[in-house]
C-alpha cells in the first residue's frame, strides 16, 4: 500500500507549546519534511534561538544546539568550520536575528557560511510577551509601543532580506509566507532549494518566513492571517532576492566588484 501522508521522521511526537494559530508549527513541519526528503536528518544539527522556538530541540528529531540570544549564526559558523560535512540550520525569530543578533547574521552572511537560516518574522517579541521588535510594523501596537510604533522615534521596520541582499557574498536569499496553502507550497519549495544548496556546499542560504502571532497581536488566528496579508506582505514583499550563481574566476577580480567603477 502506498503511503500518501505521514508524520515526518525529522519531527518528534511531542505536542508543541506554540499558541493556537501560530505558524511556527507549519514552519517546523516544512523544514522537517525537506530534511527528510533530502535524506539529511542523520547529519543535521539544528540551532535553537532564544524566543518562542527556544524549545525547538524538543520538536525536531535530530541533533540540536541551543544558542544565546542572537548568537545562532556564530554557533552554526563554529559547527560548520569544525565539521564541514554536517548540515546545519539556525531557526531564529525577529528579535533574535534582526535585533540582538544583527552583527552575527550580517557577518555570517558576508562570509558566505554554508548553513541555512530559517528566519521567522512575526513582527513582535513573542515569548517575552509582545514587545516591539525591529520588524514591528509602523503604527503597530505592542506592549512597549502602546501608542503604536512611531517611526519618527524608533525608525521603520528592518527588512532583513533586502539588507542582506546588499552584500555580494550571500548566495540565496528569499522571503516566503505560510498563511495560505499556496504560500505553504511555495515555502516548502524554497526551503528545499536552500537545503540543497547547503548540501552541495554552495553558499549561505537565508529563508525569511512571514509568520503570525495571534496571541500577541490580539487577534483570532483567521484575523491574524488577514492582518499579515494586508499589512506585512506589502511591506515585506514575498519574493526571491538572490539566486545562487556560480562565480566565474574573472568576476572575483577587484575591478569587477559591483558598485566599484573601473579605473580609467
Amino acid at each position, binding site marked *: 500500500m502506498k503511503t500518501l501522508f505521514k508524520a515526518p521522521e525529522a519531527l518528534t511526537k511531542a505536542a508543541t507549546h506554540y499558541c493556537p494559530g501560530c505558524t511556527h508549527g507549519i514552519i517546523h513541519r516544512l523544514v522537517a519534511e525537506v530534511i527528510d526528503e533530502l535524506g539529511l536528518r542523520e547529519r543535521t544539527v539544528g540551532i535553537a534561538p532564544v524566543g518562542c522556538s527556544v524549545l525547538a530541540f524538543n520538536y525536531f528529531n535530530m541533533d540540536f*544546539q*541551543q544558542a544565546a540570544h542572537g548568537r545562532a549564526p*556564530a554557533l552554526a559558523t*563554529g559547527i560548520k568550520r*569544525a565539521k564541514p560535512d554536517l548540515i546545519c540550520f539556525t531557526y531564529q525569530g525577529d528579535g533574535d536575528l534582526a535585533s540582538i543578533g544583527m552583527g552575527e547574521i550580517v557577518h555570517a552572511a558576508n562570509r558566505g557560511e554554508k548553513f541555512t537560516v530559517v528566519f521567522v518574522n512575526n513582527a513582535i517579541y513573542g515569548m517575552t510577551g509582545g514587545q516591539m521588535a525591529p520588524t514591528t510594523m509602523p503604527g503597530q501596537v505592542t506592549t512597549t509601543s502602546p501608542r503604536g510604533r512611531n517611526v519618527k522615534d524608533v525608525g521603520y521596520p528592518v527588512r532583513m532580506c533586502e539588507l542582506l541582499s546588499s552584500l555580494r557574498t550571500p548566495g540565496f536569499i528569499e522571503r516566503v509566507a505560510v498563511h495560505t496553502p499556496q504560500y505553504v507550497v511555495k515555502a516548502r519549495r524554497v526551503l528545499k532549494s536552500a537545503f540543497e544548496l547547503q548540501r552541495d556546499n554552495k553558499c549561505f542560504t537565508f529563508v525569511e518566513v512571514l509568520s503570525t502571532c495571534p496571541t500577541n497581536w490580539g487577534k483570532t488566528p483567521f484575523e491574524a492571517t488577514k492582518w499579515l496579508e494586508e499589512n506585512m506582505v506589502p511591506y515585506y514583499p514575498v519574493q526571491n532576492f538572490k539566486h545562487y550563481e556560480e562565480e566565474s574566476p574573472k568576476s572575483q577580480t577587484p575591478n569587477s566588484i559591483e558598485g566599484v567603477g573601473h579605473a580609467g
Partner: protein
Amino acid sequence: MAKVLMKGNEAIAEAAIRAGGLVYFCYPLTPQSEVAEYLSRRMPEVGGAYLQAESEVAVANMVYGAAGAGARAWTTSSSPGISLMMEGISYIAAAELPAVFVNIVRTGPGLGGILPSQGDYFQAVKGGGHGDYRCLVLAPSSVQEAVDLMPLAFDRADRYRNPVIVIGDGMIGQMMEPVEFKQPEFPPLAPKDWATTGAKGRKPNVVNSLYLDPNAEEHLNNLLAAKYEKMRREEVRFEEYNTDKPYRVLLVAYGTTARICKTAIAQLAGQGIVAALLRPISLFPFPNEKVLELGRKAEFLMSVEMSMGQMVEDVGCAMGHERPVYFFGRSGGNVPSPEEVVAAVKARLEGSKS
C-alpha cells in the same frame, strides 16, 4: 627536542596546535594578536580551522558551536575582549562543553591600556559571566610554562567538560624565551558521545543550557558543583620557593610577579631577611591548604600582584586570622620592581616591631 626561541604568544599558538587545538576563532586585540597572526599562517598547514570573527561575542559562541560538535576549540584574547566573551563562557560552562580561553591580560578597567596587568583575577576566578559556574584557571609564569600548560588545559577541558582559562599577563605574551615543546601523555579520555555529530543510529544529542524546571536547574547546579569540588581535590597546582628553611615572610604571587618575587627574595637574603614564595599555578582551584600550611611558618604573608589587590582576598580567606595578610601591588601597566617588593616587605617587618 631542541629548544627554540619564541615569543610567548606564538609559543602558545604552536603548543595549542601540538595539543590538538585545531579549531581556533579570534578577534584582534593587543597584546595577543600575534596568536591570530601565527595561526592564520599555521592552521592551513596542519589542516585546522582558523577564522577571524566579527567580535569577541561571536568568537565565544563559535567556540561553543565547534566544541558542541566535538572539536577541540579555543581562542585567545585580552581583557576587554574576554569581557565580551563572558556570555559565551557562561553558556559553555552550563552546557558542559570543553573549551580553552587564553587571556593575555592588559590593564583596566574600561579600555585601559595595552601594558601587562593581573587585574582580571576576579573575572577569571570568581565567574565573570552570570550564574553559578567556575572555570579551571591556569597561570603560567614563563613562556615555557605557558607551553607546558596548553596541553594540560585541553586535556582538562575535555576531562571535566568545562571551560579552562589560561591567564597570562601581557609580559608572558610579548616576552621571547627559549622553549621546548614536550608531548605529555594523559590517560585516555571518554568518547564525546554527547556531541552533535549527526544522530546517525542513535538518539539525538542536544547541547543546551535552558532549564525551565527549577528542580532540573538545581540538578545541573549540583552536578556542576560536584565537578568544581573534584577540581578542588585534584587540580590544585603550585610552586614552593625557598620554603625548605625557616623564613619570616611568605610572599604569594603568580605569573610574572612571582618571578619578580624570586629576585626580591634573593635581595632580601642579602640583607639577612629570609622570605619564601608560594606561587599558585592553578588560580581556581586555589591552593588554600598550602597557603595555610606555609603561612603558619611566617610572621606575615604578602600578596604581590599587578593589580590593586585581588588574589589577596583569597590569600586572606585561606589564612583566616592566624597571620596578617598584606598586599603590595602596582597597576596601570607598571610592573613592580624587586626593590619595591623588598621595600614593601621591610616596611611591614619594621611596622610589626613597633
